[in-house]
């Protein structure tokens, strides 16, 4: 059965449902406001997240699907770009409701690195120094590290994307002091990603070498 838009509603709005609110928060905080739905026939439908409610993200396609109406039960892929990865989950189209076409998504996502600098998952002590009006030092732990940035978790903070900070990273052989900008943060402040800014070549080389040697030791 081909899906038809509910009366009075455009066929380009999706209700992208994740298993829980934390998953939806992660997609929104790490992926920003853009999703891409890949339909059964390979058609890519870029969409903008226009709102959220609990475990559901409301997304609006950039173009009309009137010419290629998807069917109920169709398998789709929902993907989004993160700091250094392309993340995606499988989904199934439901029957259209008054607010749009529901897409029931699986979890967790698979991720493919799209960076030129490799990343490795590793827990290291790190600190974030906020240098703004009220200087503050936040204790965090790395989740993964690359020569371009790192993701971190720690106690809650109100760091926002775009804020300039200084990170201090404790590698086994030395400490690095690296200016960075917050790229994403979870709403509850429990995790965030930073991108290094104006990192010196020698510091970046040192991080890259650490990633390579850590991966080699695990192989």
């Amino acid at each position, binding site marked *: 059965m081909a899906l038809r838009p509910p009366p009075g509603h455009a066929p380009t709005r999706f209700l992208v449902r994740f298993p829980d609110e934390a998953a939806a928060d992660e997609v929104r905080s790490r992926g920003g406001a853009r999703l891409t739905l890949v339909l059964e026939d390979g058609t890519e439908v870029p969409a903008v997240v226009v709102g959220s409610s609990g475990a559901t993200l409301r997304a609006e396609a950039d173009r009309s699907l009137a010419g290629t109406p998807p069917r109920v039960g169709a398998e789709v892929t929902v993907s989004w770009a993160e700091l250094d990865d392309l993340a995606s989950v499988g989904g199934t189209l439901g029957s259209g409701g008054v607010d749009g076409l529901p897409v029931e998504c699986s979890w967790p996502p698979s991720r493919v690195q799209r960076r030129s600098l490799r990343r490795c998952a590793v827990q290291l002590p790190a*600190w974030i120094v906020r240098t703004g009006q009220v200087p503050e030092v936040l204790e965090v732990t790395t989740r993964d590290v690359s020569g371009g940035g790192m993701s971190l978790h720690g106690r809650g903070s109100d760091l926002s994307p775009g804020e300039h900070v200084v990170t201090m990273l404790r590698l086994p052989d030395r*400490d690095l*002091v690296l200016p960075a900008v917050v790229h994403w943060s979870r709403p509850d402040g429990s995790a965030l990603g930073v991108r290094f800014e104006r990192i010196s070549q020698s510091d970046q080389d040192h991080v890259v070498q650490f990633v390579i040697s850590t991966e080699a030791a695990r192989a």
Partner: protein
Amino acid sequence: MNGDVLLVVAGPDGPEVRTGRLLEGAEGGCEVRLERALGAQARSGGVLVVDTGEGRLAMLTAPVPPADAGSQDLPLRFVQPVERDDAWERFVRGAGR
């Protein structure tokens, strides 16, 4: 310029945070008087935040030589400003007078 400073370096057990005053500054570095000296264990460069009176200016600093780390009057060499903005330009111009 207000001249209050905050210095953060990595110590053996975590960040060491010190407050103090800016004694003199130049484009390449400055001297600060800390309320409490760093330990000789400080092993990294750090971050110096200066209250300029109009805002705050942050600089990355080179590692403190062990010979200096026990002194409250501490020379610091700048590696780079965290943001090379108008506040940095004003600091450099002011330091050059």
